[in-house]
């Protein structure tokens, strides 16, 4: 799909509206990390992912693994915008029997290729998908979205080491560096020091961008697509809760829903008229 920068920004804006609506309706969920990742996932799906929304299990599809699976509203909004699910399905978020389970789940939702919910697992799973693609001599790529707090899980580094060892060039990671985790700022919970240096030391190609500047996002995705001899990671500096003023950089909105008043303000800020 070819979309202009302004069209991509509009794509992401519509997704932001749906994210806030989902969490508001459910009165639960994770808006902060959904809003920080959304520009990245929007651009990835709208311009890079080789997928067929009417054929979600198409064998040679690119895989997208949302390892930070609590940020599911962001992915559901994109899947609806892409046509994998209906916008009506977004009402099933956190509802019994719904496609939109609390954490993205491949058993429940078309277009989801990984059952997430426990941090530190998606990169290894993506490595398996990437190895499978290589065994199949397939051109398909595997994109994995991880969080910054998530890399405190030791298993992430098992996967990072293994991916570099196996020179899995079809594995592409986006790190949502929003600087906030469940309880507090990352800096308070567990300092991670020089994150790009860590990945380089593990044998990865690394690029840093502003994850809310759509031109930088596009050049970052170019970098991921162009790196094929070793695994690559795009470290996207983002703002938790981006787009909704009172959620931005606010650890309280990692996993909390807006009240009526806050919801109305959020819709206003996102340019959505409430009927």
């Amino acid at each position: 799909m070819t979309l202009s920068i302004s069209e991509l920004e509009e794509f992401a804006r519509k997704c932001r509206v749906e994210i806030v609506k989902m969490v508001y309706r459910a009165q639960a969920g994770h808006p902060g990390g959904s809003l920080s990742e959304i520009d990245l996932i929007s651009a990835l799906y709208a311009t890079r992912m080789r997928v067929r929304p009417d054929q979600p299990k198409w064998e040679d599809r690119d895989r997208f693994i949302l390892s930070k699976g609590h940020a599911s509203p962001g992915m559901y909004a994109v899947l609806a915008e892409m046509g994998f699910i209906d916008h009506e399905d977004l009402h099933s978020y956190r509802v019994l029997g719904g496609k939109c389970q609390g954490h993205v789940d491949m058993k429940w939702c078309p277009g989801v290729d990984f059952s997430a919910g426990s941090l530190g697992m998606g990169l290894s799973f993506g490595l398996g998908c990437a190895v499978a693609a290589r065994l199949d001599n397939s051109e398909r790529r595997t994109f994995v979205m991880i969080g910054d707090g998530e890399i405190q899980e030791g298993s992430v580094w098992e996967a990072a080491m293994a991916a570099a060892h196996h020179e899995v060039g079809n594995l592409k990671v986006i790190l949502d560096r929003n600087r906030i985790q469940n309880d507090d700022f990352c800096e308070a919970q567990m300092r991670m020091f020089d994150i790009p240096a860590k990945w380089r030391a593990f044998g990865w190609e690394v690029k840093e961008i502003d994850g809310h500047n759509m031109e930088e996002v596009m050049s970052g995705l170019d970098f991921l697509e162009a790196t094929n001899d070793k695994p690559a990671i795009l470290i996207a500096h983002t703002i938790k809760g981006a787009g909704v003023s009172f959620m931005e950089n606010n650890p309280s909105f990692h996993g909390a829903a807006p009240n009526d008043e806050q919801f109305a303000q959020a819709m206003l800020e996102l340019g959505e008229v409430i009927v």
Partner: protein
Amino acid sequence: MSEMAATRDGYGQALLEIADNAKVVVLEADLGKSTKSLHFKNKYPARSISCGIGEQNMLLTAAGLASSGYIPFASTFAIFTERAFEQMRNGVARPDLAVHLCGSHGGTHTGTDGSSAQSIEDLAIYRTLPNVVVMHPSDYVSTLELTKQLPALNKPSYMRTARNKTPVMYRGRESEIVIGKGITLRQGTDVAIIACGVLVSESMKAAELLAEKGINATVVDMHTLKPLDGDLIDSLASQCGAIVTAEDHNVIGGLGGAVAEHLVTNKYAPLEMVGVADRFGESGQSDEMLEVMKLNSKYIEQAAQRAIARKS
């Protein structure tokens, strides 16, 4: 002396025999020499994935492969699979991906490596996971046959194999070995001994000891703990009226637990459990461990006498 072989060698041989299936891939965490997956690696390096000493990554890499149409076999020591329990739970069992996990060196029979290596809880923990088939075969041939059935299973599985040699019992009886079906090795009507793994041969010895005293015991090899062969247990409860379980595993949650759960909700019979008495092991030879942990034929025989005495 009857033929002796280790069940882990049966696993390694089976991987070679299913290698014609191009979807079979093998993952290992630096213990391929021990689990015997290295035979596959030597012959099919392109379909072997070294995960280094990283069990959590191994399990999920396997899950990713399974989601892409491959049939992954991952192995390490039984005890180290437990480090990746949540990966097995959330990444394999929950999405119902057909990853086949093999834990070798299970039980106190593992011997001189000591208690850190002697998993006594693996069967219990994997049995609690929905979708997962749990097996603990008793000999080389049954391990070979059960492993060869896994590519067609289309469910995740856990299989415990043993480090040390045990008597080979199933030469020429390969067709009797089917996942989910217990095998009756000996028929008697006074008591039924249901065993798995290394204690199956000990149970056969116990049956001989009982026969010398005029007691006729049935012995069943319950190589599959889940799904449990409940029909067979019902018929044993009816025909024998007293049951003993025998396993080189904690008495909590393993074969004894599984049989107890079945008996109390179906046809009841008094049950005595031979197993590790909720304690850790130590370094010792296999036969010494079976004695110190009270698992060998002598203790199985005593348990049978107690079960018979409890018949109403």
